[in-house]
């Protein structure tokens, strides 16, 4: 009964949505943004338009988005106890995974580095590189590597915040010179974007990895308000 009702509602919604898409596709108004982007590419400091949009034209979005990632990581590690990451049970004896690690990991590092570098001119960039790096970390973790830096200590927190902090500093330095917030000083766009991307890659990888590792076991709990301890 409930299934039927929800199905009917969803069907109605789907039809309305498809109709809306159809209508909008039929009568677009206004100018086109890609041309504006193409015109501004020369001033952006990079050659790949998506990277230019992400890290220059709409860099505020990206800044806040990294903030979202950091928040998720903070909320995640706030729940973690992580007693000992060197849990003996974690050590795998799977030889395939072992072999995979031996050969695969360096390759992944290489891929990540390439993706990062390539981002300036062609597809790729900090997110993809960070994700690959995090994937590498996950594999290492699954392989039983201790990865003590993932303990919720200062090192981890520095790692989480590093990319964001560098981004923020770059953003504010130009503003201190009287420019707008997040504006790159003339001619500095390319190196600054590269700098940001390097640190972002590290931090993104760290965030994703820590969320993976911060599987929550924490028996300590705060009593609800008004409940006595």
């Amino acid at each position, binding site marked *: 009964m*409930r*299934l039927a009702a*929800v*199905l009917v*509602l*969803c069907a109605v*919604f*789907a039809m309305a*949505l*498809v109709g809306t*898409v159809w209508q*909008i*596709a039929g009568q*677009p108004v206004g100018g*086109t*943004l*890609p041309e504006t*982007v193409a015109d501004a590419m020369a001033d952006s400091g990079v050659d790949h*338009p*998506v990277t*230019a*949009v*992400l890290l220059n034209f*709409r860099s505020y*979005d*990206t800044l806040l*988005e990294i903030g*979202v*990632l950091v*928040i*998720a990581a903070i*909320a*995640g590690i706030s*729940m973690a106890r992580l007693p000992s990451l060197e849990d003996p049970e974690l050590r795998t004896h799977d030889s395939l995974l072992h072999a995979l690690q031996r050969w695969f990991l360096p390759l992944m590092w290489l891929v990540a580095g390439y993706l990062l570098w390539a981002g300036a001119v062609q597809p790729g960039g900090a*997110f993809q590189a960070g994700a690959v790096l995090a994937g590498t970390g996950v594999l290492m973790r699954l392989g039983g590597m201790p990865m003590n830096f993932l303990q919720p200590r200062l090192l981890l927190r520095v790692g989480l915040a590093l990319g964001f902090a560098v981004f923020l500093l770059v953003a504010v330095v130009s503003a201190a010179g009287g420019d707008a917030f997040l504006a790159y000083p003339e001619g500095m766009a390319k190196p600054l974007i590269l700098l940001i991307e390097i640190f972002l890659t590290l931090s*993104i990888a760290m*965030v*994703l990895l820590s*969320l*993976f590792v*911060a*599987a*929550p*076991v*924490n028996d300590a*709990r705060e009593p609800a308000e008004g409940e006595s301890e």
Partner: protein
Amino acid sequence: MSVHLLYAFAGAGVFTIGLFGMVFMVHLLRKLLAFNLMGSGTFLVLVGLAQHRNGVDPVPQALVLTGIVVAIAATALALVLIRRYFHLTGQVTLEPGSRDDEGHS
């Protein structure tokens, strides 16, 4: 009708499927999967519809990249919460036996 528009329609479909899952499913992990479907659908509509009018458009592509990162952040956080919740209560639904009223759109 361009290929982009086709994917936009596909996105509308995927979004609706995700919405259905979000409303109807009870298991938290399935809700989370449904949310990710909604996200993917939205991204398809965003790029598909924009490119239908503009041709290849770096702006929505960049937006989708941002959106994907936000979605993974939310997903990962939700997973941490769900697992901890499961650890404390042994439950994988919000309130067993009662329906959730999130997500009537």
